């Protein structure tokens, strides 16, 4: 869903934990694959504690790697030869 269609509002009747959970749901709408990595750090951020952003970025990058393809068979090799 485009970012400009996703809105997060703090519910004044709810506490921080509930509102962060609500925000985590918005994160999943922005990118379900990446959201869990950021969601895991929201409580730490809210306490003003430093987060290891290098680690976060590396984990996110690893999670976006394409799934490994099945091992190439003979037919694939023949196609490779004809492709160029």
């Amino acid at each position, binding site marked *: 869903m485009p970012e400009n269609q996703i809105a997060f*509002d*703090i519910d004044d009747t709810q506490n921080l934990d509930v509102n962060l959970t609500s925000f985590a749901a918005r994160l999943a709408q922005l990118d379900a694959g990446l959201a869990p990595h950021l969601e895991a750090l929201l409580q730490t*951020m809210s306490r*003003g504690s430093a*987060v290891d952003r290098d680690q*976060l*970025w590396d984990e996110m990058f690893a999670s976006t790697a394409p799934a490994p393809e099945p091992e190439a068979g003979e037919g694939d090799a023949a196609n490779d030869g004809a492709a*160029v």
Partner: protein
Amino acid sequence: MTDWLLRRVSIEGFRGVNNEGAPLVLDFKLDRVNSISAPNGVGKSSVFESVLYALRGQISKLENLPPAENGRSYYLNRFHPGGVGTIALVLAPVAGGADVTLTVTRNAQGVHGVSASGGADANEVLADLNQEFVLLDGKTFQEFIDDRPVDRGRSFAGLLGLRRYSATRQGLQSVSNTLAFNNHFGINGKEQQKQTQRLAAQQAWAKIRAAYEVLAGEPLDPALSRDEMLARSLSALQDIPILAPICTGKSFHEIPPDECIQAAKTAEGGEDRVRYAAVLKEETDWRDASNGVPSAEDATALVELAVARDTALAETSGDVFQKLYALSEQILADDAWPDKTVCPTCERNGPNSVLDFVRAKGANYEAVEAASTALGTEWAAKGWGQLSALEKLALIEGEQGKLAGAQTKIQAGGVDEALARELTEWVAEIAKRASERLASIGAERSELEQKLPESTATVVENIEAFRRLQSALSDLEVAEVRLAAVADQLARTSRIKKFLDDSCNVFSAGESRAATRRMQAIEPICRDIFQAIMFEPVVPALTKRPGTEELSISLAQFWNLQNISAQAVLSESYRNAFSISVYLAAASLYSGGAKFLILDDVTSSFDCGHQLHLVEVIRTRFARPGVPDGPQVIILSHDTMLEKLFNKNSHNPDWAHQRIVGNARTAVLQQSGAANKVRDATIAFLNVGRVDEAAPRIRQYLEYKLENLILRLKIRVPFDVAHSSEKQMAQNLIDAIKEQIALHQAAGTLILDAAQVAGFNTAVATIAGNYLSHWGTAQAQAFTAGSLLGVMQAIDALDACFSFEDPPASGSFRLYRSLSQVN
């Protein structure tokens, strides 16, 4: 999050509270307004600072002292020998349940320790308690008015109950920081790689088109598939009779070029044909290497970018300063560093924001980064990095190449104007050599073509075209694989960056809307409180600029004027009232975690009338029990007029008042039972031979006992009895009592019997001989523990000299009404 009330504060060895072995214990009523009075210098602010340290781990007043003052060495009480300051907060959950005791310590090395009873997470509870409105003093209110809008807005986030949301936003901003993100993933380098591989593919296609046209005898149709192109090329090759046996049964890629060249060599033509093939290859190599040499305009553009990079670099001060600025920004941007005009390195302050300064300096480094990136992108896009083959061909024996080293410097952002000029001139030089060599080769080729039969020359040309086509296809394949790999990495990082940016933007927008909403809720309450304190037609206003953290303050009404600057026109008392109104309004709506407020001397700028108004606002409109779910308020004050009001209020069921007395050297104690605490501590010190610790406490105890006798017996004293030398005060008090006894004896009205008078004289002789005579001369070394224990007994014996048994034979004694009256 649990909401907490403050049941008790206990302090020992911290700031102005020594209390060795007998901590200052202040108990607070959970369902009343609590007030504490203390004369100046007794330790009232030490109570405030102790709670401040417990909650925030530091006291900015000490942290911000100049280094020479060594402010951190003043956290602990200088007279306490233990080397550890201990603060305990007993917290009661609003919702009921077991109390939790938080114990915070600091040792002489500055090590901060925190623990909690009952298995509670001490740091978690402290984080909940550390709200902006918990500890308020005059300085906080002054800063609120004087702060820049952005600083005020940041502290205001806490007042709106949004501090942890603000911290979350700052965390999100940190992980979406573009410069750090790009550095982490080497985005600029990858973009250059992408450009390089894209250019390599374009150059390979150019070679393919040229070779195909020679080999197939027709221009390459862009619509032709790659397979069809290969098929036609193979067919053209097979049409050459001498190559047919080599090509049969092979795909285009499987045909070995060397075998083709060897076949042509052995077929006919001798040395000229061999030389012709070599000339063709060399000519092709030079042409391929020269293909895409940047133009003179490209050279000018590259130099201009290097000049721009040098200009940006001149505004910076090297890597060490870059680290300094980055660290300074990190410290200054933290809410724990409240005064942004104080430099975190030298701790000096000035009129301007140091945070703005270091951010501007940091921006200069980002400009260098951007200029270097632009230079690198231009380098890759125009193919400056693709000329290594040309350089290799053009080098004269013994000459060193320059492009490999330049490539490394480009990636490191280290190409300046001088190097850019040197490189562009070098490339122009090798391009000139290529041009000259191609002219020479062209002449030789023409000469050979005239010697060889036309068919022979064509065969050689076709074989050479085939070799080039096969090589270019291989280059294309490599470039496409590399391009796909780097494009994939960039796409993945781009996805992550977009997600982080979107997350930050979505959260920031939500936080901003909440801040606006909550501020609008606060403003009318703030105005009501302000009006209830000041009773004048002055109306405060708060304005938050949309999309920013800035909070501006003004006066919507100033008597008959509208929209007036609050900073410009308000007196100190009105400024104070403005700030108090904002803080109380915010706390009434958004207090959480800490359900208590401690106000330290917040009325100093008010006259008596406004003090009364403020206290009434707190009592009736803000604090519990007047407002059942309001905060518990604890007011600290040295003001004697306010103390009278506190004493009056303490007769009401909604108020609890206590007074503390003492000094920083010995002890600060609640006035109730304080004398007994001093007495017990003194005797405890003497019993273990610690005369130096006991001696000043004896003075405190003696003065209290003498003052008590004088007060109770209505003994007249000279008006300056308390104002002459403090070392003489006890003697002055004794002399006053002696004079009154003598006066009543002379008048025949003395109520004391002879034994009591004798007892008084004996006690006084002991006190004077064993203590006062040495104390007055500051000869503390003359004291012994044994003699001072005798002095303590003599002090305690004084009461008996002025008491009678009431009722008779009951064993219960009372002081006489006066020296001439029993009761």
